[in-house]
């Protein structure tokens, strides 16, 4: 069995633009879910609104397509109502950081047994390229035509600070590592947050000097700084380049989790 069996074949091809990285992230997530060996009846995919949140519509399992930013709130309800279900949340950066930011930090604080895969394309892709909280400084979007002047949100650092059990960040170029990270997140009891940077050729790349999809992939690949290397640089007291972002497993700990299935006590 491969991850292709988890797709609704009659719904494909999906409506994502040519070169959009969201399809890659769905592949990696489904490959990890497939490797866990879960039954399709026991798995629920939840999403909010946005490009990334169309993902559960292409998956055969039960799914919830909920209101904007409230995917985590609905997922919490699903998990608390039936702790035996495996809940995976697909969400985007506008969904998670901008509108659902409050739900995000409180889900991290409660440490509910969810796995959240955030497809961070650094822009509101579906509505026409408005600047999102994760748009890097100086990047052009339709609401920041002279370049964004605000510092961007680091979602992984936020999740670590708020108390998530497992936090990792990878990109749509690092598919194998991302698959492994999602699998570790699924195995971890408690809140697991996997941030995946994806390319958005239509609304981000087009305005920011990445005319071809490959250009943005090359940029993402070249500016990823492994966590081990970041730690080494910090040890040697060297400066970390400002335009690089850290990838890798950023946090793994075992705080008490909420919403775990009660283990059956044998008499």
């Amino acid at each position, binding site marked *: 069995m491969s991850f292709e069996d988890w797709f609704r074949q009659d719904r494909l091809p999906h409506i994502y633009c040519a070169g959009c990285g969201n*399809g*890659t992230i769905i592949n990696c997530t489904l490959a990890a879910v497939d490797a866990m060996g879960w039954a399709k009846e026991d798995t629920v995919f939840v999403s909010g609104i946005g490009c990334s949140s169309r993902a559960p519509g292409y998956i055969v399992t039960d799914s919830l397509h909920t209101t904007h930013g409230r995917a985590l709130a609905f997922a919490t309800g699903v998990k608390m109502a039936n702790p035996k279900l495996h809940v995976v949340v697909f969400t985007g950066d506008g969904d998670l950081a901008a509108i659902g930011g409050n739900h995000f930090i409180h889900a991290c604080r409660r440490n509910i047994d969810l796995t959240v895969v955030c497809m961070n394309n650094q822009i509101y892709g579906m509505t026409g390229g408005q600047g999102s909280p994760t748009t890097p400084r100086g990047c052009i979007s339709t609401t920041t035509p002279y370049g964004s002047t605000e510092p961007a949100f680091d979602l992984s650092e936020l999740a670590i600070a708020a108390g998530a059990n497992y936090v990792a960040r990878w990109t749509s170029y690092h598919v194998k590592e991302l698959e492994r990270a999602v699998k570790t997140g699924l195995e971890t009891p408690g809140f697991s947050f996997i941030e995946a940077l994806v390319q958005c050729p239509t609304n981000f790349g087009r305005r920011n000097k990445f005319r071809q999809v490959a250009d943005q992939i090359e940029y993402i690949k070249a500016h990823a700084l492994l966590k081990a290397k970041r730690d080494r640089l910090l040890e040697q007291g060297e400066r970390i380049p400002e335009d690089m972002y850290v990838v890798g497993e950023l946090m793994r700990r075992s705080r008490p989790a909420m919403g775990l299935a009660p283990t059956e006590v044998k008499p």
Partner: protein
Amino acid sequence: MKLAIDETRCKGCNLCTKVCPYKIFKEGKLPNLRGIVVPELDRPERCTNCRLYHLYGRQLCGVCQLTCPDQAIHWVEEEPYEPHKVAIEY
């Protein structure tokens, strides 16, 4: 096993040409009926998964399939090679 691209799903983003370690995928030249330039396969028998899937009994490499955002790349089973008798009439 044989590598195949599903032309009804491919959107021509050419991401597969970036990730294959053997550079099996080449940028296509002619648009197909849907107006999409589908990548061409350059000697696909070099693919690791094609050669060794049955020997190892599991998926190998598979980066192109994971990377393809449109789920267009897959492997199909091949009929084993059968020598044909050719009768030559003089």
